[in-house]
């Protein structure tokens, strides 16, 4: 009886793993298809569609745009998030709880509605659709995240080190650069990488706020109009590979750093 239950549990777990991996396996497998349709039977392996992706100027420029938007919007998010978290954690400000609530409020609203709001505002103010507009949207969604991560990690321990530096005569900007930033480095990196991955993968805001120059998810979306296509598989597999590298890097640099 017990053995039967154990067996059933393992079968169940393997079935769920199968369900989770099915689309990814199909995606990567048929990115290696030699013929023009990513459907069975498998005719590869061939790297022809990867070549097609890398020689497609629209896709490669969209990839560069995506990286640019991700890095710059994450830098802005982490800078704004860090400074405000520091301000709220170190000083007693009137209405602090309310203001902190305001900064984290965008976390509760869906990307579609944030994008819609910015579209209406920019349309009304005559701001043209551009990568900059999408980048502004990405800061709106990532700033609260960076703020929350860093604010939650600023404890008494850090305050004491800062106080010691001040007592020894360090100016406020020196305390910030030489004490606070190094001490908070893990939280800062965590916020930055999380912002990077969210911005890198964000679709709906970029879709609404860009026009000619656009980001990779939007360009992939445009590819979908041509139906099932191994080129889409290839670009999807490449994006997957980049994300995995980012995640492994994140694991190795940040999670291993924790004091044992």
């Amino acid at each position: 009886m017990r053995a039967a239950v154990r067996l059933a549990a393992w079968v169940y777990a393997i079935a769920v793993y199968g369900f989770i991996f099915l689309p990814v396996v199909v995606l990567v497998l048929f990115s290696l298809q030699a013929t023009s349709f990513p459907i069975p039977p498998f005719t590869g392996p061939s790297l022809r569609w990867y070549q097609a992706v890398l020689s497609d100027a629209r896709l490669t420029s969209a990839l560069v745009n995506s990286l640019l938007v991700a890095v710059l919007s994450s830098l802005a998010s982490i800078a704004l998030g860090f400074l405000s978290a520091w301000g709220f954690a170190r000083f007693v400000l009137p209405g602090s709880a309310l203001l902190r609530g305001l900064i984290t409020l965008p976390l509760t609203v869906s990307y579609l509605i944030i994008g819609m709001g910015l579209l209406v505002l920019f349309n009304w103010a005559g701001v043209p659709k551009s990568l900059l507009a999408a980048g502004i949207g990405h800061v709106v969604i990532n700033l609260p995240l960076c703020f929350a991560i860093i604010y939650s990690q600023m404890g008494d321990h850090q305050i004491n080190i800062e106080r010691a530096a001040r007592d020894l005569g360090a100016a406020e900007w020196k305390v910030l650069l030489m004490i606070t930033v190094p001490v908070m480095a893990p939280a800062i990196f965590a916020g930055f990488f999380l912002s990077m991955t969210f911005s890198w993968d964000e679709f709906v805001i970029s879709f609404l706020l860009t026009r000619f120059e656009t980001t990779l998810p939007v360009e992939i979306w445009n590819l979908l109009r041509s139906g099932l296509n191994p080129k889409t598989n290839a670009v999807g597999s490449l994006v997957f590979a980049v994300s995995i590298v980012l995640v492994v890097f994140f694991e190795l640099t940040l999670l291993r750093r924790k004091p044992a």
Partner: protein
Amino acid sequence: MSVCGRNSRALPWALVTPALVWTLLFFVLPFIAMGLSSLTAHEGGGFTLANYSQFFTDPSYWWAMVNSLEVTAIVTVISILLAYPFAWILAEMVPERRQRLALMLAVLPFWTSYVVRSYSWLLVLAQNGVINRTLTGIGLIGEPLQLANTRFATVTGFVHFFVMLLTLTIFANLKQLSPSYRKAAADLGAGPVRTFLHVVLPLTLPGIMVGAFLTFVLCIGDYITPQILGGNNELVMPQLVMMQIGRRGDFPLASALSIILMAVVTIAYLACARWLKIERA
């Protein structure tokens, strides 16, 4: 007043002002603009409530909300039912030192791009996709099944995403549970089934509720999965919003529909929050 004494009138405000101004300028102001836009007529621009009344009087709009709520409810329930036993097996039956790896594998496809993940399901479910080719290949069915462009496809795509998400949250929940509860239940003579039903399940219920709420919010606001997998047969609210912008450039109506969608999420949040408090008491 201040924690650290010196030079502290201007400095704290200098630190927090940029983030506050950013939020006011690019989050609060757009929201106000959307609210005003929703109250103006698409043609002419005068004040009107027509954008809202259109939603309540036109059944095709009304049905999009019903579809949204139905799909979201189905997805939430199926995802929890699939993820809970899976997370339990990972937490209880996989040896401790392999758990990290097992969990990382379970959420690996999380790291594909969201658009690409829905497209991958299209490969699996299409008329000549993997499932149909396999089933006709072994002679189980004669004609390919209509799997893509259906509600079934939308639900499958969503469940795939949320099973991963909920496995993470429920796993964390189960691991936080102190083993002494279970020992106590066993000492008092409860078998594994009763221990689970009367001790483990109730203690993990608040966590499940948080996961369910997260699923609800993310699912009801998503445009990508229904658009790629469900097609245009049974529209959901985000599709309806995008349609107003894309096809007709009707910002006022799109704004009104967005605000209605947000109101529904807010109501769900309030309902959920109250329910959670009762559970904890």
